[in-house]
């Protein structure tokens, strides 16, 4: 008897600690209460110009698979929300909360439902794996707007927005630069699982390399995991041993690969978030998602009464994707000009990306 009591207590403690770490409602920058003068109303002075009663803030909740600081997919949405908040004038006008580390889809579904029932204006399910949960939840909350990415599918529901990134575009630009900078003519790619956003990026990257120099060999390695940092690192070692002098990769486990690239002094191209801070000497450029472009459109629509039914796509033309160069890496003017021409070409349609 005593045994089991002890054990249950222990389990509960663990559960508590766990739920304290990973889960719902980590309030982003805490909304600051407007400081009200606390003088007693008996004061004879008329109150100086009363500030206009603050309008209700627009409230957003987001559920994401990994951490807000993963330097990849989850960080891209977090950074976007921070930028919107800054633009809209702080937490009084735009408030957001998030649940990170929701790699278990069931947990994510529970969090999405919680947020919806708490009356958030927009609930974002940031991960294609959350789709079927959202399809079930959304009809129960017809007044709430949902956004799901990365995908094009709104399930035909009037309160779901879909968003995705044309990551092959930034991949292509990275590929053009990579082909120019490679002297060994071997380039390595560390991918997670051959699907979705990762596959688009890798295919775009390959197309960019081959369009620039068909003699360059692009070796692609999908390690079968979004989290196995050790295997990503060894994949980078393998590419380097196979002669690669430029590497790229996508998803959060690539931090292991970037470390190896830095050790071997091999160049790196990033995607999803700006990865320059991790290895300032070798990161040339990163394709960064600026989801705020799409999110602002959604917010506008929601305010005017449209809660969903449309899909959005981040690309170089609408500013949802931006190639951010690492200021600490001395890129030659010629190479930079080439990158910029390529970006312009993709935007005006003179450069077309053929995917396999």
């Amino acid at each position: 008897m005593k045994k089991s009591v002890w054990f249950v207590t222990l389990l509960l403690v663990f559960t508590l600690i766990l739920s304290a770490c990973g889960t719902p409602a980590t309030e982003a920058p805490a909304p600051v209460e407007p400081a009200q003068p606390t003088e007693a109303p008996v004061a004879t002075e008329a109150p100086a110009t009363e500030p206009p009663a603050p309008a209700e803030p627009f409230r957003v909740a987001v559920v994401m698979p990994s951490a807000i600081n993963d330097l990849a997919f989850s960080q891209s949405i977090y950074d976007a929300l921070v930028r919107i908040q800054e633009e809209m004038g702080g937490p009084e006008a735009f408030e957001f909360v998030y649940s990170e580390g929701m790699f278990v889809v069931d947990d994510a579904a529970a969090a999405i439902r919680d947020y919806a029932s708490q009356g958030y204006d927009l609930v974002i399910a940031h991960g294609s794996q959350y789709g079927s949960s959202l399809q079930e939840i959304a009809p129960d909350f017809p007044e709430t707007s949902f956004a799901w990415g990365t995908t094009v599918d709104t399930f035909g529901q009037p309160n779901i927005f879909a968003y995705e990134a044309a990551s092959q575009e930034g991949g292509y630009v990275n590929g053009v630069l990579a082909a120019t900078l490679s002297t060994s003519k071997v380039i390595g790619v560390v991918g997670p699982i051959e699907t979705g956003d990762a596959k688009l990026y890798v295919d775009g990257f390959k197309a960019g390399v081959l369009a620039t120099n068909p003699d360059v060999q692009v070796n692609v390695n999908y390690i079968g995991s979004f989290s196995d940092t050790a295997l990503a690192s060894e994949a980078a070692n393998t590419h380097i041993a196979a002669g690669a002098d430029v590497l790229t990769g996508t998803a959060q486990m690539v931090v292991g690969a970037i470390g190896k690239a830095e050790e071997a002094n091999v160049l790196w191209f990033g995607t999803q978030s700006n990865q320059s801070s991790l290895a300032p000497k070798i990161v040339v450029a990163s394709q960064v998602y600026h989801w705020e472009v799409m999110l602002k459109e959604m917010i506008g629509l929601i305010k005017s009464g449209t809660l969903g039914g449309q899909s959005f796509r981040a690309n170089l033309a609408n500013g949802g994707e931006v190639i951010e160069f690492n200021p600490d890496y001395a890129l030659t003017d010629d190479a930079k000009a080439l990158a910029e021409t390529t970006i312009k070409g993709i935007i005006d349609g003179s450069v077309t990306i053929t995917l396999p």
Partner: protein
Amino acid sequence: MISDLFSVTVLVGILASGIRLATPYLYAAIGETFGQRSGVLNLGVEGQMLLGAFAAFYVTLNTGNLWLGVLTAMLVGALMGLAMAYVTVNLHAEQGISGIGFYLFGLGMSDLLFQKLMGTVETVKGFPKIYIPGLSDIPGIGEIFFSQNVLVYGAYLLVLVAWFVLNKTTLGLKIRSVGENPDAADSLGVSVARIRYFTIILGGTLSGLAGASLSVALLNVFQQNMTSGQGFIAVALVYFGAWRPAGVLGGALLFSLVNALQLWVQVLNVPIPSEIAVMMPYVLTILVLVATVSRVRAPSALTKPFEREN
């Protein structure tokens, strides 16, 4: 193409990668071997590795002292082991379930500390490669065996030490007898509790070191959940290795070499779908396990709490 697989560069690359990849498995699985030989299954290895990895990384990041980082990782692992020992030896808790509890604790705590203390992924300068004079110049062999970092060498040395301790010392005999027949050991004056405390704390220490070997020697970064299941594979390797250090070494090398091979298979554009390639190490390990399972016998008292009968 397939024929490229048999070039010297590739073979050397596979062997060198395999030896590196096996390092964390060896530390963790050898530690687990001690625990299981004394009758305790610790499923919390993964959590101990994660906390060890974080501790080593954080201390190294702030002090620049790699050895201090490694020491802290071992200490953190030992503390986790101490807690595990108390729960399983004194409280007689079900070992499998409490191990999972410790795993979840390590997973959550390392993530929490990472978020609060660091906030973003950073890198450190880890242990450099040590080129063993003379030997490292041998073509091929030198790169594979004699150009690794100190924690890689340490892992293989540990296998030898573990074999010696388990088979050739009184302590090893006591550990084995406690795992096979705790009542008999107890009647001969061997303290079952003390031996199990020792092996579980040792296992925790080595798991912490396994984590450190990832975060400050092999990868030199820390990221949430960076072990991504390696601790559980280490537990499986103990079964695979039939509770013997040499068997564990064989299992760890097999798994890691096949993993290294599949990385090369993809890099060389061998026309095998990547999904099949990543499955190879797991499938092969299971096949070998199935083929050899008949000769395997677990320590009799494994997972059984010891209660002295009066």
